[in-house]
């Protein structure tokens, strides 16, 4: 009964976001206004023709457009943020003639606001030292830039665990984004430090760097697990490992909707695993593959990615799509102990319905060729909403999905993954003030997880449909878009809060 409940873990994953900026849109160009006007005109039934009457005949003589010469840029209100960092967002140059409705001024203001460093950015002009010249004054109000980006709390069949990710978006006023995340559970601790610099040396690229340290365990095997040297069976075979290393990457915007990035990562691994272990999978005893070298090994990879994003709103999306493709290559030529190629493709498409609801269709396909360490493989919890996902690539549970009772319940870390899901989104509220809106959503889909061997050999112990390693995932909940960030709460979050629900399902 109730296969959905066939797990025994509790976890709550609270999404907290947020940079607490108070954005007050103030500027708009004549072009913007004309666009609005055009929109009106396209909707109109009938507009009056350009002719006659009354006060239109009282026009003054047409004046030439107002043009100033930029004498200098003055920044006011910045106690913390370096003046040059702020000036770096102004693309007008000293001595350059410009019109007050120059679109670059509007862009500069919003780019400054988008940094998250300021609660207010105001641009104004002052007379310069000579007639016709002006000073461009940038008045900013700085805000606190330390934010909690995410919190993870959980209680699995193995251990309670928790983590937090805190960011400083304007490190020492330099414009560098720094974030630190830690997560811990029984015998496990992980940390990650990240730096990113959006405007590296005034180049059109962003640069980022991360360092990680994981002192972790993972739990292998399904049933009747035997470990060499132990007379009795255990619940799981444990691999203890450390990861030390990091990554360095750059990204570049190809316009407003396309992005490319390249990352290099290097990690030293130190793993302690059983000499040999076996488990019962599909009713047959099989050896356990740990997919990591014992003792010290190295992981060295390059990853190239491309993303296309046309969504109308990143938080409460109504239409558009986002697609991403990436390739990661690890090779002994790079000093890696693991030779593999990993290909990812993801696509989300949002279809607005005439009655204001939205359907989201998602597809993910992943393939690994070669010999990747287990933590770089596709993990069941990252595909299914009903199994806890990893935190900082660390797994704190030993659970399996089994809604369809197929061979996927034997899978944990594999080389081939796919998912096809849909989500139906109902906007329930749009407004002003603290709460900007919230949506109700429900969704379901199919996930698949397989090894390369599954392509050629039917899994033992399963027949017909059961041999196909697929399962169902489903969720429903609410997403709140607030002044403090976006919060998501879903049924799967709640289910994870119920103690021993998995155990109850097993007993049933």
């Amino acid at each position: 009964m109730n296969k959905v409940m066939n797990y025994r873990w509790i976890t709550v994953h609270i999404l907290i976001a947020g940079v607490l900026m108070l954005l007050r849109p103030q500027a708009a160009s004549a072009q913007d206004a004309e666009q609005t006007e055009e929109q009106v005109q396209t909707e109109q039934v009938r507009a009056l023709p350009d002719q006659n009457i009354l006060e239109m005949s009282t026009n003054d003589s047409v004046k030439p457009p107002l043009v100033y010469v930029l004498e200098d840029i003055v920044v006011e209100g910045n106690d913390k943020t370096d003046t040059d960092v702020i000036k770096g967002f102004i693309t007008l140059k000293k001595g350059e003639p410009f019109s007050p409705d120059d679109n670059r001024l509007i862009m500069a203001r919003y780019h400054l606001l988008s940094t998250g460093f300021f609660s207010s950015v105001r641009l104004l002009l002052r007379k310069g030292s000579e007639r016709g010249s002006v000073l461009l004054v940038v008045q900013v109000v700085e805000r606190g830039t330390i934010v909690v980006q995410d919190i993870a709390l959980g209680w699995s069949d193995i251990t309670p665990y928790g983590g937090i990710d805190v960011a400083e978006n304007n490190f020492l006023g330099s414009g560098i984004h720094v974030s630190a995340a830690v997560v811990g559970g029984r015998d496990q601790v992980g940390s990650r430090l990240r730096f990113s610099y959006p405007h590296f040396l005034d180049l059109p690229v962003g640069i980022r760097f991360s360092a990680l340290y994981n002192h972790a365990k993972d739990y292998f095997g399904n049933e009747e697990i035997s470990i060499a040297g132990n007379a009795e069976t255990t619940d799981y075979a444990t691999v203890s490992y450390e990861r030390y290393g990091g990554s360095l990457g750059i990204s570049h915007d190809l316009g407003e909707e396309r992005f490319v990035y390249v990352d290099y990562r290097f990690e030293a691994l130190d793993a302690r695993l059983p000499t040999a272990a076996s488990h019962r999978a599909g009713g047959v005893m099989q050896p356990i593959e740990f997919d990591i070298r014992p003792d010290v090994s190295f992981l060295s990879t390059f990853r190239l990615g491309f993303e296309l994003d046309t969504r109308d709103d990143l938080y409460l999306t109504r239409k558009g799509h986002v697609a991403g493709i990436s390739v990661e290559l690890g090779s002994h030529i790079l000093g890696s102990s693991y030779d593999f190629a990993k290909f990812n493709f993801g696509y989300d498409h949002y279809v607005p319905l005439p009655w204001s609801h939205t359907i989201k269709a998602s597809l993910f396909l992943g393939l690994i060729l070669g010999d990747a360490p287990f933590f770089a493989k596709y993990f069941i919890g990252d595909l299914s909403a009903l199994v806890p996902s990893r935190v900082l690539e660390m797994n704190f549970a030993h659970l399996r999905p089994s809604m369809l009772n197929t061979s996927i319940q034997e899978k944990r870390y594999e080389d081939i993954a796919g998912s096809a899901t849909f989500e139906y989104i109902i906007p329930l509220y749009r407004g002003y003030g603290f709460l900007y809106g919230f949506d109700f959503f429900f969704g379901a889909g199919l996930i698949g997880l397989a090894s390369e061997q599954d392509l050629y050999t039917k899994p033992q112990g399963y027949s017909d449909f059961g041999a196909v390693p697929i399962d169902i995932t489903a969720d429903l909940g609410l997403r709140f878009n607030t002044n403090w960030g976006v919060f998501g709460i879903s049924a799967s979050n709640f289910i994870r809060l119920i103690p021993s629900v998995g155990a109850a399902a097993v007993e049933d």
Partner: protein
Amino acid sequence: MNRIHNVRMILSVVLLIGLVAVRADSGDSTRRIGTAYVNNSLLVSFTFRDVFRQAVRIKLKSGLPTTVVLRLAVYGQGESRPEAVFPRTCQIVYDLWEEDFLVDIKDPNGSIHKRVSTEQKAVDQCGILHHTPVARDLEKGTYFVKVIAEANPLSPELVRNIKKWLSRPHGSARSRAPGENFFGSFLSIFVNQRLGTSEATVIFRSQDFIIDR
């Protein structure tokens, strides 16, 4: 079984919360406007100077443009589609060296370019319609107009781009593979901002009026 019951109860609570929707009320108010039908043209007179709220007025002398976009639609009584639509754009720029205001108005009747000496005169130029023709060749009947005036509106394209900058500055493009991001499949770095579509908005409808040719 009790635990299963709890699961169902929680699912029900989530659903219930979702179904308690609070829908925003448009909150349109009614204002009395002057109307006349002359030479087959509907002329209207009214003020919407209140769109120049304090924050907008502060900006008037900044030397940067302030734009007010007016959209007026004429409806027949009981009709959901407008009989006519009248757009109007007004831009005010303070000339730092001449120390006066440039007012630039565009609508289907033509364009006006003026220099006025005071802020109040500039606001009056933008915020008042006086015997302005907004529709022609209307049939006999009862009508009303709806007015939307926005100060410094943002184009949808700009709003969309701003949201992207807010959520994804340079250097933050990420893999879309599940599990590869920071805190698992749920994670997004949300940098949330309220992006209004304008700095100030005035919306109202007129009283009903009769056109009897």
